[in-house]
């Protein structure tokens, strides 16, 4: 058993206790006192042992606190990374070149030792996440500053190195935040590299959103790779979420600014194509999300479907409609969307096993 399974067992116990209380109130199933005492003792012992062995939340307050801890860990990691950057920037001009190089190369190695130490001392991974993100920031600083110190011509391949580094830490220690860093770095590298095939400068490749669609699809496809290890159970969903986000954002940009496309068509034609494509892609995401039970994919699809719809409503009606009427229509459309989603939800409930 691992943390996720232990948490699901805890959740099942709580759900069972609530349902049992309801059944007793409705006089459907009433346990006698010895049975109830035995059940309570068993559940109590089980919860205590699970809490001792795994990082689980056995009360609602603990669950809320866990979310708070995740947010604090993220903010702490971002702040520590910024501190490392600013510390180096503050003093680097006063150091000789060999000392600068030595610091830049050893800082990520020291931070890696910190990751290992944090992972050994504390099982929840919060402190390992902070140390790992600091290590990542140190490595970015390393290659970035080597480039600045020695006036090295910038290259997109640095993103490949950063992405590989973050991926190693993400897979080695089961750190989702580092997987996000890896996905963003690798998408940057892929986008830039695809762009250079056409002869453009790698930094300009980002000006053509189609390049992001290719990278997004590649990342989405990575979600289908097997992730058998328990600490990597959330990784496929992360791949799907960020891959889909890249695709939908790129489509949204081209649906509104057609001249950014690589397609040799008039900007208005490109915009119309991508508007249709945006509705189709987000509807497909909702459908696939419901069918395969990918909650994040469904939510992201629904969000972008609404965004595509509202940007179209704005294009059609903002100029000639009275403001009160425009917002009334927007509100009514929201109600309509809710009704459609409710029907979908009901249908999903009926087809569920």
């Amino acid at each position, binding site marked *: 058993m691992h943390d996720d399974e232990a948490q699901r067992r805890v959740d099942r116990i709580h759900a069972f206790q609530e349902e049992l209380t309801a059944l007793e109130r409705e006089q459907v199933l009433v346990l006698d006192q010895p049975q109830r005492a035995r059940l309570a003792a068993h559940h109590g012992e089980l919860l205590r042992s699970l809490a001792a062995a795994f990082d689980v939340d056995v009360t609602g307050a603990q669950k809320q606190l866990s979310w708070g801890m995740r947010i604090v860990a993220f903010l702490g990691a971002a702040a520590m990374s910024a501190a490392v950057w*600013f510390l180096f*920037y*503050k*003093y*680097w*001009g*006063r*150091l*000789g*070149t060999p000392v600068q*190089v030595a610091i*830049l*190369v050893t800082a*990520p*190695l020291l931070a*890696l030792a910190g*990751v*290992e130490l944090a*992972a050994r001392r504390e099982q929840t991974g919060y402190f390992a996440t902070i140390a790992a993100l600091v*290590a990542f920031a140190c*490595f970015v600083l*390393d*290659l970035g500053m*080597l*480039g*600045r*110190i*020695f*006036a*090295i*011509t*910038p290259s997109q391949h*640095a993103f490949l*190195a950063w992405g*590989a*580094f973050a991926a*190693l*830490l993400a*897979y*080695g*220690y089961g750190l989702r935040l580092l997987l996000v860093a890896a996905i963003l770095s690798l998408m940057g590298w892929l986008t830039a590299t695809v*762009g250079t095939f*056409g*002869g*453009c*400068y790698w*930094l*300009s*490749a980002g*000006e*053509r959103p189609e390049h992001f669609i290719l990278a997004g699809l590649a990342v989405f496809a990575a979600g289908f790779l097997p992730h058998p*290890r328990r600490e990597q159970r959330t990784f496929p969903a992360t791949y799907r979420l960020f891959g889909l986000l890249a695709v939908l954002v790129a489509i949204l940009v081209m649906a509104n600014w057609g*001249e950014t496309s690589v397609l040799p068509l008039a*900007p208005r034609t490109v915009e119309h194509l991508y508007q249709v494509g945006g509705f189709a892609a987000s509807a497909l995401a909702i459908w696939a999300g419901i069918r395969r039970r990918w909650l994040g994919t469904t939510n992201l699809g629904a969000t972008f479907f609404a965004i595509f719809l509202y940007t179209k409503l704005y294009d059609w009606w903002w100029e000639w409609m009275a403001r009160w009427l425009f917002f009334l229509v927007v509100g009514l459309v929201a109600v309509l969307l809710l009704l459609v989603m409710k029907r979908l939800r009901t249908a999903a409930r009926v087809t569920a096993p």
Partner: protein
Amino acid sequence: MKRPALLAAAALVLAASVFALCGVVWNRHGEPEATLTLTEREAPLAWSAPSRESSGVALRLSVHGTGYDYGYKTLRVARARQDGLEGARLAALGFDTALPRDLDQAYLAARRQLSRPAFAAVELGGAPWEAWKRALAAEVEKTEAEVAAGKRTAEALERERRELAETIRDGSRLFLVEVDRDPEALRSRHPDRQAVFVAPVTVDVHVDHEGDDRACDPSWCRLQGSVSLLVDEVNVPRQLQGGLREAMAAAERERGAPGEKPHYQVVLRSGRRHEPWIEAIGARAEER
């Protein structure tokens, strides 16, 4: 899984850093590709540093015809000299130079072309500098004629003369002279390694259009290239900062005095990968 991942990550840090440093050694190994002696005119203190949050010191390469110095006056004079980056030169860099007849479509065609990497020959002084001075002097003469005809005021003429004097005294003498995909071809056409260095650049295109006509006729509407240095700031290592500090302290003491520039000279080198570095910095020097 943890230990192999940790070791692989550490190996990656070392490999990437060593790879970057090997590139630096390769660039600086052997005879420099170019060695130029610049002054504060061509290599002023970079805007980015030093500051309260960054102690790094860098010099900015100020090159006529690239992003930083592509101001109105430069553009006007460059156009007058017919030395713009356009036509066949842009086509050789991979740009599609055929523009639609409709002006809006022409602008769209230009915007849709992404910047491309290339190399530029950058010359210190020499013929471009002399031509530049002559072009500026011609501008002043034109203003003199306009003043004589009553089209402009004497104040405008005085301002133009002052600008000319300041440009000749303080302005950069580095000029972009040619752009090509092949750095070796550039070097073969500009063999003077003491006066010309070859630098990696990016080239962007825009429509250069004169007049009010909405049609894009090739005689007044054409695709024009603009060039940006990929490396436009060069780090000053700590051991060379002393000379720079002394020169800047002297500048502070002399602030406002006429003819104050340049305060220092910089020996700039570039290597096999056309990446520059500062070899030496000294106090005020003889100008070329």
